[in-house]
């Protein structure tokens, strides 16, 4: 029983990381049909922001607290730059956004290598987050994992509230549902796009901060995570946050369980097979926006 819960929690914490990354992707993919391969590098930017802040701010707890908003803004600004300079030219060609942003991610990785060096760097975790929480029944849960889970859930809650309640959220939802109708209704869709890109990329920055608690920071840290996160978005359904939430945790648990029963590598294959099987059942993802479009 303890083992089961342990595995379950490992899965949930994998899912929390995936969720943090996938949220931003779901936002930009859902609204603009943009596949941003540089999202992984925005994660990296968030992680390096944490690292830089820790050089100047003593006290790991304080620097982490400062890093969260700063990383959000840093990554978000990078996202807006990318959108303004490149992506807005490519809205009609979604597959090409994938290729272009991959070129950008190559350059950003090299930039990180030139600034911070190729070897990975490490940050100190705040003392508060290094221990474990003991639960009844001999169960322990690592504090940092708990923190990441809380961060992911907070991000989901904040994003949901923002989308539901704020005028900006209303505009975003309108653009997701019907871009043309939104435009003729007086919504400045290009401005909404830019804001969405800022939010989505900023979330990647938050994910980067969270990842510094789990492992080293390196120029290529985003590459592998991004594919899993894309799978979450694909399986969850476009333009639907709840799909991403459910699927992120489901994939996390599946990965952890598979890893426990077999090996890490076999678990990856199991997850892939499960995704292809799932798409047989629901090719448009778990949740879809109902539209009348034929495409």
């Amino acid at each position: 029983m303890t083992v089961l819960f342990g595995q379950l929690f490992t899965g949930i914490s994998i899912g929390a990381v995936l969720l943090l990354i996938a949220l931003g992707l779901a936002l930009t993919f859902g609204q603009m049909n943009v596949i941003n391969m540089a999202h992984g590098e925005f994660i990296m930017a968030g992680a390096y922001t944490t690292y830089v802040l820790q050089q100047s701010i003593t006290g790991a707890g304080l620097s982490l607290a400062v890093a969260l908003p700063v990383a959000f803004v840093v990554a978000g600004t990078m996202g807006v730059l990318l959108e303004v300079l490149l992506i807005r030219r490519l809205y009609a060609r979604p597959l090409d956004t994938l290729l272009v942003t991959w070129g950008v991610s190559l350059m950003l990785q090299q930039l990180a290598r030139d600034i911070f060096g190729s070897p990975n760097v490490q940050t100190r975790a705040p003392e508060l987050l290094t221990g474990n929480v003991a639960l009844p029944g001999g169960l322990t849960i690592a504090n940092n994992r708990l923190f990441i889970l809380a961060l992911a859930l907070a991000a989901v809650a904040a994003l949901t509230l923002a989308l539901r309640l704020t005028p900006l959220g209303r505009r975003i939802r309108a653009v997701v549902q019907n871009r043309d109708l939104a435009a003729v209704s007086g919504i400045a869709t290009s401005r909404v796009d830019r804001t969405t890109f800022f939010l989505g990329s900023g979330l990647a920055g938050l994910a980067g901060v969270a990842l510094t608690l789990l492992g080293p920071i390196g120029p290529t840290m985003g590459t592998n995570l991004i594919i899993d996160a894309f799978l979450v978005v694909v399986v969850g359904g476009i333009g639907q946050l709840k799909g991403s939430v459910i699927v992120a945790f489901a994939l996390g648990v599946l990965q952890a369980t598979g890893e426990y029963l077999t090996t890490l590598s076999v678990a990856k294959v199991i997850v892939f097979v499960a995704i292809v099987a799932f798409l047989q059942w629901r090719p448009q993802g778990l949740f879809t926006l109902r539209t009348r479009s034929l495409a």
Partner: protein
Amino acid sequence: MTAVTPAPPDTAVRPAPVDPVPPGRPAGRSRLRTAAGFAFGAALLFAVAPLVLSDFRLALLAKYLCVAMVAVGIGIAWGRGGMLTLGQGVFFGLGGYAMAMHLKLADAGPGGMPDFMQLYGQLDELPLWWRPFASPWFALPATVLLPMVVAFGLGSLVFRRRVRGAYFAILSQALAAAMVILLIGQQGTTGGTNGLTDIKGFFGYNLDDPVNQRMVYFIIAGALLALLALARQLIHSRYGELLVAVRDGEERVRFLGYDPASVKLVAYVVAAGMAGLAGALFVPAVGIISPALIGIVPSIEFVIGVAVGGRATLLGPVLGAVAVVWARSALSERFPGTWTYLQGLLFVVVVAFLPGGLASLWALARRRDVGARPERRGGWLSLGRRRADRTEVPAA
């Protein structure tokens, strides 16, 4: 793929064309030009290159030509069929590993085992799934058929359920990621991160001998020409027209009574087979196959060459792929960091601002009709595609 073609209402009025040109097959001058082009390419590959280049350079060229073979397949699947496959490394790897497993077993001799198995796996006997590869009659067809079977499996699942566009690209990429992780994880039987290295023999020939290396080069050059010929036939057939139609308007093609899934599947499977052959020939040329050669990054690099050369043309992918890998090895030796920036920049500039690739520059320079969608027209490099377009216009 049988078409339900309703009889045109005006058949009685309009006479049948006097000289019916089969759709898509360029006739006359264009065909002559293509033959001349092939002869020129063959002369370049078989006579000029071996004379001019040193053994070392020739071996490098052999390696580039393998990448070019993958590019021919991507040109069909992506350029013609609109399926952005980011996982061609998987098929390249399947072909490469199939070949390497056979050569390893042949090196080890009858009943022998590859050296690394005792080292990493502490295996006493050959794993079951290695055994068939001891026979060349299994291993050689497998280099091409295995990738095709995998592509057929994934493709038929994915295309039938109309998973496409970005979804397909991401899935194909995930396949590459999963395969690499699997190969690394099963170190005892796959060689792990190192892959299968130190391949010495090639069907009885010693690969250290420069003469035999040349032989491998000639095989590769011949294979590339054969694949190009095959691709050309495919592109200019009825099927080729259908493939482009599916790319540009899948729903319309469906309404016309065709099954777009089958059309796409054929292109994807052919591309996979080409990548498999390329991987198989890469192994004797370079002497190694490893996960680092087939993962996500190399898979995308295959696509870069195709995009840079011109995705929708026949020769563009080949020239682009060779140019990009050549530039990488030439520049990354001297400026390792700068090359990465250049590679990224090249990709951004070409895809964002010149989606037809460098082939469309040629066409632009010759003031051909490169319209709003340059990928539909290729100019000279498309080898007669314009002619093919014209045959579709009904005689007025």
